[in-house]
């Protein structure tokens, strides 16, 4: 399933870039993070518990930054494995300056979920994913505020 959107931050582009590229800050935006490891600048691992209604789905997610053009563009691949589900996600974001102190972020995410959870299909997963994306963007805003 493909998701995309645009979000505006009341912060300079450099600040937003810094937050988006800080594993520690990003960890605070992800849903249900239980632990977080940084292997190197390009590779992070997170153990998360994604709320799925029927109970949390525990997943080990490996993230790899695959492309970046500071301070405006980056792509990230994430691959999560848990009992009953395997998630693959590739995301990209593009930052542009709206003017002094304002940055807009265009983002896309391609998410595929395999396994029995995937069989529930988009009609079930889409609202859950939308809700999680909303949460992530809200916490991202908080992280950006904190970094100003």
């Amino acid at each position: 399933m493909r998701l995309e959107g645009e979000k505006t931050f009341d912060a300079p582009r450099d600040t937003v870039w810094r937050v988006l590229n800080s594993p520690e800050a990003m960890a605070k935006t992800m849903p249900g993070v239980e632990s977080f490891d940084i292997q190197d600048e390009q590779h992070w691992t997170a153990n998360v518990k994604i709320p799925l209604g029927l109970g949390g789905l525990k997943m080990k997610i490996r993230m790899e930054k695959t492309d970046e053009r500071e301070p405006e563009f980056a792509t990230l691949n994430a691959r999560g494995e848990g009992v009953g589900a395997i998630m693959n996600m590739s995301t990209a974001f593009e930052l542009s300056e709206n003017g002094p102190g304002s940055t807009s972020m265009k983002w896309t995410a391609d998410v595929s979920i395999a396994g029995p959870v995937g069989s529930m299909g988009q009609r079930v997963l889409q609202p859950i994913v939308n809700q999680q994306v909303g949460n992530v963007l809200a916490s991202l805003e908080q992280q950006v505020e904190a970094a100003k």
Partner: protein
Amino acid sequence: MTETLSPAQPLVVEEGEEQRGFAGTNVPRKEDKRLVQGQGVYFDDVKRHGMGYAHFVRSPYAHANITSIDVSKAEALEGVYGTLIGEEVAALTDPFFQLATPPGAHIKDYALAVGKVRHVGEPVAIVVAATRELARDAADLVEVDYEPLGAVTDARRALDPETPVLHEEAGSNLSWEGVYEWGDVEGAFAEADHVVKISELHFDRFNSTPLECDGAVVEYNRGTGQWTIHTNNQFPGFAAIMMGPAMRTGLDKLRFVTQDIGGGFGNKITSHPQLVACCLLARKLHRPINWTEWRTEFHLTMSHGNERWFLDTEVAVKADGTLLGFRTKALDDAGAFLRYEPLGGVIWAQVTPGCYRWRNVRLDFTQVVTNKAPCSPNRGYSRMQHLWFTERMIDIVAHELGLDPVEVRKKNYVKAEEMPYTTPNGCVYDSGDYARMLDVALELIGYEGLAERRADAESRGKLFGFGIGSTLDSGTNNFGQSRLINPELQFSGNNEVATVKLDIFGEIVVTLGTTPQGQSHETTAAIVVADILGVTPDDVNVRAGHDTYWNSHAGFSGTYASQFAVTGLGAVKGAAEKLAGEIKKLGSVILGCPESELELADGFVRMKANAEAALPLMACGAIINANNAGLPEDLDVTLNARYVYRPPFELPDVERKYGNLTLTYAAQVHAALVEVDPETGVYEIVQYAAIDDCGKRIHPQIVEGQVMGATAHALGAATHETFTYDAEGNLLTPNFYDYHVPHAMDMPPLKTGYIESPSPFTALGTKGMGEGGGAGIHAVCAALQDALAPRGRPVVYDSCNPYHRVWELLQDPEASRRRVEVISK
């Protein structure tokens, strides 16, 4: 609510002949007592000391390379006995024999995925543990790394150059293709007044819902090198010839045992890969292995029915509604592996013209593999798709040309006086009277009063529709038809075995090669034996199930493809008559009279002229088995009669694709009335009639049960049952929540009726009849098309019409109408 209509003259009896014996009467089923008391023995009831429980680790991906499998964590868990992975399978076995010619012949199919997975749920490893639950938990500890690949889930895209290829060895996703053409197709279209073109029709993917899922308990005897496989596989003859060569062993090392089986419907024909995996594990781990499939696994991976597209169809019609012929391109989606395929590529040809007299047919058949569960036979296998298509052509032609679907059928049905009727491709319809069946259906459905019902429905704001489905259940395969798929195959004809013996205390014991799954073989075999030996069915003990050790089986033994009433009962009749002959031979020695003066009746062999001169069967059994001193040396009597029934078949002509492919043709005519809510597309089947003709009925109630079950099955397929995949190959309907099978409350008011047209080609006048549900799928489609006609005349183009699809037809009738075009001269 059900009710049965009996014809005025239920049985055709020659004048002066009286109906005697048990055939045709509803004696109590021999199986029922143990089944209703919970005393049946299914494979899962077989327990063995130290038995391990197997659980399959399955692929979450539709298409992926396997980069590594690590079973160490699972094996380290206490209570886990061991594991099996694809690499071991590839070392210990050969790929299963493929029935296809190249490119399908190049496909490598093993018991577990080797190097690559090709559908969601494909088994990649097995964990065996002390309990079922532990095995399931431990399976989660097996670490498999995948490298996902693109998937193909739409057969229409399978051969596109950019589409990923499932089996690199095959070079493309094509598994088999062939062109069938009979009669003068060009001539028919030249002669036609109208040509009706239908660009695309689609028969959906679904399967059956046996109460018992697949499974086995497998033991390995190290001393003899032999496996005993307690299983519910329904075609041990086929499983054996698939398993033996793959396991590099003779068939003498494979003993199949069944007793009770909770339904099969063809879906349990292709469990041989799982059985091989269990055999390997039993040998590797030195312990018996239980594999019991979970319901989700059944939905996800076992035996879906073939999905089929009919593309660029053209129908040649005369102005008066006479059908001259048709041409089409059938595109069949076999799923990821060819487990019984590509036999579906020829099985449909058993019923090439459906119930109709058209003589000019061309069908280009293409079968492809896709990243979905492998297909296997499913009640009505491959004919159901074709018959639905045939019926759809009839109704679309009628609607587009403004003809009455009833009249078009009656005009074009093969007529009773034309029986036996040779079809354009050389099949011989043995007997039947389709027009009369339609009349019975119309009477039961209340055809005369349809106008009032329609007006009443419309007064309540509902759209009202009436539809017919008329189909054939071709039974008793000539396996020679496999040569139309692959001329190299060395299969032809058919056979089944029965042994009937008379034991020391007069016990009559029948053993069969069949694997009944609810078809009441014990009851019907006992009826046939009782009538021949002059005893009652209670006196006859028919051994339950199948055991290779009984030596009562042959190459095609099993229960599948609508044939027991012909092959099974034919064998039973042959063996019982052989035994009756031996009893008379012995009687003539003991009673001192010619055999011709003897009869079997009331449990005796006795003189026809003098019932006092009689020898009880018990005495016959005792004399031959335990008291035989002084008998004439040349008396060739064992009272243990084995008979192999072999139907009268010839090899088909491979070049012309011509010949008799099945021995019998049972017929079904179903009629449905629907009421549709025009706002929502929700509809209800408000009345239903199912008429069946399966020739002589040995046990009418059992036939009735099959008719009702098949009807429920059809209505499920017509309304809700569909395996839907997303573009990535996830099955979106892998459970009963999303895959809705009809409940009792979903069944419409059902009336059943019958006629009997005895088959002239079978020993008892019977016909196979277990697969006659296809008529219902079409009856619903036709009723919907009739109901929706006032709303822009949409064309029903799919075999499965859930409410949302009906709503779509209501919202945008033009979209469906673009599929149809009429060219008139």
